[in-house]
């Protein structure tokens, strides 16, 4: 039986939390440092969300009345900006926490 599909975003977390956090460790020769699952999921979602929304806005501009939709697009952009800012803040907080955590006592 294949992995039961749920929504894309929860699948992202499922894969990251297993592939990055679990699995057998037989120390390799090349040292690799990868951000933790929390930070990475947020960053990935941030990128995916921006691309998707930008596409939506672009479509509106090309396909419908430019005046009305540039207004709508501006509103969209504001919303997007706000959302990005919120996520950015959260990211900074996490990064701050992370660098504190990794600091030697």
């Amino acid at each position, binding site marked *: 039986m294949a992995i039961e599909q749920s929504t894309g975003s929860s699948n992202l977390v499922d894969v990251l939390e297993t592939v*990055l956090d679990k699995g057998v460790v037989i120390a390799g020769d090349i040292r690799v440092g990868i*951000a933790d699952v929390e930070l990475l999921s947020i960053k990935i979602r941030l990128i995916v969300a921006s691309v998707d929304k930008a596409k939506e806005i672009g479509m509106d501009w090309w396909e419908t009345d430019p005046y009305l939709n540039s207004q709508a697009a501006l509103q969209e952009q504001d919303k997007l900006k706000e959302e990005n800012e919120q996520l950015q803040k959260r990211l900074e907080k996490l990064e701050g926490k992370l660098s504190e955590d990794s600091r030697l006592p």
Partner: protein
Amino acid sequence: MAKLVYLYGIIPKNDSYKEKLSTMKGLDDFHEIHTIPFQETEAVICHLDEVQYGEKELEKKTNDVKWVHEKAFHHHEILMKLYEEFPIIPMKFCTIYSGEESLAKKLDAHQENMIELLEFIKDKEEWIMKIYCDPSKVRENVSEQNTTIDQKRKEIGEMSPGRQYLEKRKLDQLIDQEADREKDSFASNIHEALASISLQNEVKKNWNKDVTGRTEEMCWNSVYMLKNTAVDDFLNHVKELQDKWEPSGWQIEVTGPWPSYHYAKIG
């Protein structure tokens, strides 16, 4: 030129692997995935260019979120394909050796362990369960049905308006606490029922909404190691629980089977 070795996982010695693997491209989308025999096992690997995947270059790559996103999924997809055919010991993402000799040395040291492990996981499956809830719905139910809260509300109704204001705020906090308790006890009851069907289980971290990107709140996250023969039983049980609890806002979601990320352990 010397080549680095990227290790995906270990499978039992098998004669049919060659056709199965021949079409798969490795992590760099260039070198092919193939196996190297080690006594009774085979290591599934791909070569990587030493210049492009040396420590410094790799650090740049792993700092690139898009790269990690794409490659972590590549790693997972390859393991899933292999897992359709063979029991597999999955390696952590980005396990890279300086060459085949170095890999051989490491694997030789763990050979016995790996044979035992492959034997152990071959008739078992790993499943993950996550429970999500609508927090406002839980809160509402608690607020309506909890007898302590009901009692408190009656008492407050008889107080002076000034005190009522303060006491109502306290009551709100109490409802929050009771709602959290309700989430935890609901989820752990479900978990106990599923754990009794499984060989092993592990409770994992709940991720917040920023991580999951969902509007519902994750209130449970756990993994189960099941005997092959118990999987139907497990899934039927999950289905019953889903049907029973979905109308009240609880979403019970299972995914699997996963390669034994949680239960294949060495050392």
